[in-house]
């Protein structure tokens, strides 16, 4: 896997990490909201129950004092019974004020509380109406009055207060349950999103890796194909510039080379041609002739490759472009050596063949305004002149 792929995958997992962090933060926020809401509902319900229960406790106190009245008593542990009753109702009024101030009660709770409140008011009113008759009437009458007119009111008020408490508590429980449900659902959704996101990231990561590997593989294939193409191209180029038989650069390569040096500086160049080479082909066959040429070329490679660039112009004609480090005088001597070396016997399939060589040598100066064709033609002309003069000689072009 290359560095780019690694970077891509790292980025993906970084994103995943950020998403998970965001999920945790969101989770904390939701938790806090749920807790605060539940706590608020719980606290309000607790306060509500306390106030309502306190009202009910006061009703019980009032009932106890009323029973004392019915029993003919005037005071309760030293305090006037009616004062006790009045104080208890005053306390109920305060609790009612506090309960109303809480707010947040449901419509059902308020409906039931309204009846409880009216029942308590009716109870207070009836006690006030009957208090004097309770104290003045006989025990039996007082008891009857209590049972018939006061007890039902007190029982109704208590029943409605208890119902109000139940409604409020049930509503609070339902609210908390709802919050928990919403919390659970939101948690599940968040976790599902996180899991889906993780799965998606894993899948994406795997695909990215696979794609990256594929790209890499194809890149390698392309590179290899390109190299092959280059090699093939080079081969084709080389084939175009090479003499297939001798493996030497051919006339096109020579022309290309001369194109680059004519006019730029002086150089020594010689051409050599095997005298009566056609006779070897005609006498011994083209195969022997090719073998003869290959041997001559090989000899030239072995002996003069370090001293000159070797070209096989065509057939038995060769060209040497001497290295610029060799002096003019040395070149003349060297060129003669080349001619003689080329003319030395060659063993071709057990037959020793030999043919002299003619050639021309020219020290080309940079200020000579000549083309490649001009140079080659002049060299050829000089070489052909050497052949006409009997061959086996080297002419120097001045």
């Amino acid at each position, binding site marked *: 896997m290359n560095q780019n792929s690694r970077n891509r995958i790292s980025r993906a997992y970084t994103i995943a990490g950020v998403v998970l962090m965001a999920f945790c933060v969101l989770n904390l926020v939701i938790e806090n909201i749920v807790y605060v809401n539940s706590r608020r509902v719980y606290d309000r319900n607790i306060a509500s129950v306390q106030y309502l229960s306190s009202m009910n406790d006061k009703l019980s106190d009032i009932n106890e004092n009323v029973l004392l009245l019915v029993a003919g008593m005037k005071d309760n542990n030293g305090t006037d019974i009616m004062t006790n009753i009045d104080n208890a109702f005053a306390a109920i009024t305060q609790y009612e004020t506090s309960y109303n101030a809480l707010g947040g009660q449901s419509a059902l709770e308020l409906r039931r509380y309204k009846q409880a409140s009216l029942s308590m008011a009716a109870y207070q009113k009836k006690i006030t109406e009957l208090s004097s008759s309770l104290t003045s009437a006989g025990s039996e009458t007082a008891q009857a009055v209590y049972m018939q007119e006061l007890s039902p009111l007190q029982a109704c008020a208590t029943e409605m207060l208890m119902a109000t408490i139940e409604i409020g508590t*049930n509503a609070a429980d339902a609210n908390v349950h709802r919050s928990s449900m919403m919390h*659970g659902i939101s948690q599940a959704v968040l976790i599902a999103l996180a899991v889906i996101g993780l799965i998606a990231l894993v899948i994406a990561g795997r695909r990215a890796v696979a794609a990256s590997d594929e790209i890499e593989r194809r890149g390698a294939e392309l590179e290899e194909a390109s190299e092959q193409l280059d090699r093939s191209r080079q081969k084709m180029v080389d084939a175009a510039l090479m003499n297939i038989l001798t493996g030497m650069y051919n006339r096109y390569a020579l022309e290309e080379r001369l194109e680059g040096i004519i006019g730029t500086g002086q150089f020594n160049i010689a051409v050599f041609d095997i005298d009566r080479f056609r006779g070897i082909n005609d006498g011994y066959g083209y195969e022997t002739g090719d073998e003869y040429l290959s041997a001559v070329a090989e000899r030239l490679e072995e002996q003069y490759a370090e001293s000159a660039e070797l070209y096989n112009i065509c057939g038995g004609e060769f060209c040497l472009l001497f290295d610029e480090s060799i002096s003019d005088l040395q070149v003349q001597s060297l060129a003669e050596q080349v001619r003689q070396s080329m003319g030395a016997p060659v063993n071709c399939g057990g037959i020793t063949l030999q043919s002299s060589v003619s050639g021309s040598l020219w020290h080309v100066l940079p200020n000579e305004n000549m083309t490649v064709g001009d140079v080659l033609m002049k060299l050829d002309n000089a070489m052909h002149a050497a052949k006409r003069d009997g061959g086996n000689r080297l002419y120097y072009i001045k």
Partner: protein
Amino acid sequence: MKRNGRILPVCLLLAAMLTGCAGQQKNAATDIYVICKSQDPYWDTTHWGAVDAGEEMGLHVVYEAPATEQELDAQIQMVRDAVAAGADAIVLAPLDTDALNDVLREATAQNIPVLTIDSDVSYAGRSACISTQNRAAGAIAARQAASLLGNAGEVGVICHKADAQTAIERLGGFTDEMTAGYPDIRVSEVKYCDGDVEKSKEGTKQLIEEHPDLRLIYATNQPGTVGACQAIDELGLADAITLVGFDYFDGADSFITSGVLDGVMTQNPYNMGYLGVRYAKKLVDGMTVSVNVDTGATYVDASNLGDADIQWLLDPIVDKPAFTD
């Protein structure tokens, strides 16, 4: 493989959370059957009391009633149908004290608690009776009447039916209280008018005509009260005759304001329906309840007619729609 190993536990956790998030399984609804005496609008208040209790406690209230109070067989069949339908409890306003005993026995045999409201049955297996203590209401009416008479005078009674339990108790409570506490007050005659308005009107006129010293009339039910009001109004005797009635009715406030009707004993039918369903739920939950619950009777006259608690008592369903079939 490492990645698969990490994903699988997370998916399992997710599945567990989703399962948990489904929340508690919803409790099955509790069916409380409320069977009243008739479809007279009077019972709308009881019906709403029952509906409100059902709404507050998450109960399914099934309300039924025969078309009229004369259809006892229909009411018996309704109880039988409730038992067959698998009612969790039955709240019944019985049309008869004894005739429903057999079907109620069928209900309790299947562990269906039965409560009565408004009036009672003789079947001892019923769990509770939530109603006005009619004898107590009669006594309260007597004390109010005595107060209006100044503890002395002649009283006539317009009663509904001699064999109706409510009539017996309301009259009995009234006369017993008078006898025990007000020796100078005499009940000269009781006229039974079948709970019919016209008959009650005629009966009132007859009472007044036949008893010239009559100063107060006590009517034991709503039709009797309405008939008596009409009679006294027609005769123009609002100042001469004091009328203490039973069961508030539409138009009673006008009669109170004009002085025709001096006061009326008012029951709490809303609480009968409300407490009936509430106590039924307690019984279904295995709790014990009071065997007899007095929903009380309140004397309403011009002095307290405008009080908030009285206004609520007279019309607790003022903001609720009427039930239609």
